[in-house]
Every structure is written in structure tokens, then in C-alpha cells.
């Protein structure tokens, strides 16, 4: 996931085929809007 943060300007998080969130990479990794996104990138699931 650190690779994704390093190389991209925009990041999308998909879960079970549905796009949960799509935003600037910096936003996704510092203050995601969706709780599911936050739970995934912080390792609480997945």
C-alpha cells in the first residue's frame, strides 16, 4: 500500500466489486471520507 501512496496522484478503494471511495492520494491516506476506507488502510480488515 505504501507503493500506491508513493506512485499515484489519485487513489480508489474498491471493496467486493464496488468503488467505496476515490480521491487524491494524500486525502485518502491522511483523512479518508469513508470509514470502510479508513478501516482498510489502517489494517483493521483486509
Amino acid at each position, binding site marked *: *500500500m*505504501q507503493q500506491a*501512496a508513493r506512485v499515484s496522484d489519485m487513489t480508489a478503494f474498491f471493496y467486493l466489486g464496488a468503488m467505496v471511495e476515490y480521491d487524491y492520494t494524500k486525502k485518502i*491516506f*491522511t*483523512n*479518508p471520507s469513508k470509514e470502510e476506507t*479508513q478501516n482498510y*488502510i*489502517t*489494517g*483493521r480488515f483486509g
Partner: protein
Amino acid sequence: MVKFIESEITSLKKELNEMWSMVYNQMAKASDAVFTMNKDLAQQVIGREKRVNAYELHIDSDVEDIIALYNPVAIDLRFVLAVLKINTNLERLGDFAEGIARFVLRTDNNSVNTELFEELRLHEMVERVLLMLEISKKAFNEENIDDAMSLISKDNLVDEINAQASTILTQYIANHIDETKMCLDLVGVFRKLERSGDHITNIGEEIVFYIEAKVLKHHDKHDETDD
């Protein structure tokens, strides 16, 4: 793969809470020492200051480890950054408590006038600072934004009493020249309490940042009347 960070966060929270309680006790004891001019109590506060400093170093080290090993992001990142800054603010509060205790050791018991303390509203100022410290800890543990933000307006009373204290002490010195040194040292106590209010407000701002990713630093402070 993202390592699960939950246990590290729990452990860090526990450690910070311990430091918070210690600093609260230091500030309460130092203030009690001033009201009673109890030099033994003041000496206890000064002796304990090393433990506050030790907590600061330990927490700094734990935060460094978490960042290096877990690469925290989002709320976890904001949490460790907030803890780092809250840690520094608490350590400064510990320093102020020690400084207030040193006033007691430097001051001759006979030169202290309890009526002067009442006129200066020293009790009120101390109570407000301790209340703010209590609220800040509760806000952190309960992730309560309202409590965290209330600290900004609560600091207004601390600032007000400090501003009045200088005027009152200036007049007092004019009428009690032989107590000039005590009064000048007392100005230092008020200054430390006023700075304590500012540091606790900073802690509130860090809590808001951690919970809502909002930066309140360097914004205009609220000018509401205190409740």
C-alpha cells in the same frame, strides 16, 4: 501488508494517560504548596519532576517506533502526531508545576499575605487550570470534540485573572515596598499558570486535529463568555 496497530495505540494511550494524571497531581500539589506555603510538599513536586521528564522521553521513543514499524496512516497517523505534541505540552506543564513549587521554597512564609491571594483570585485561576487539564484528558479519552473546543473559551478566564494580577501587584508593591521580591516572584507564578492555560488549549487543538483532521492552530480564538 499493513501491520495491525491497535495494541500499540492502546499501549500509547495508557502511557499518555499515566503522564496526564501525574502532571495533574504535580500542578495540584504545587498549587496547594503555594496556598499553605508547605515547603515539604513543594520539595515533593520538585523531586517528581524527573518522572514527568522520563515519561516524555519514553513516549517520544514509542511514537518513533510506531511510525517506523507500522507506517500509520489516516486516523492512526493523526493520533500519533497528536500524542507527540500533547506529550510536549504535558512536559511543559510539569515544568511549570516545578517552577511554582520553587516559588514556595524561595519565599519566606511570613511574607505571604493570604488576603492578597484572594484579591488576586489565585484560587480561581488554579481551579480553572486544573479543570481545563481534567477536561482535556476526558476529551482525549472519549474523543469528544465539544469538550476539546471548550478549552479555548475556558482559557479566557485564566488570561483575564493574569492581566488583573499585574495591576493589583503593582499597586501592592507601591504600598508594601519590603514585599517587592515576593510580589515579583508571585508574578512568575501567575505567568506560569497563564502559560499552563495556553498549553492546555494547545492540547485541545491537537485533540480536534486527531479526531476531525481540523487544524485550529493560529485561528482567532473564541471570545465567548465562560460558562
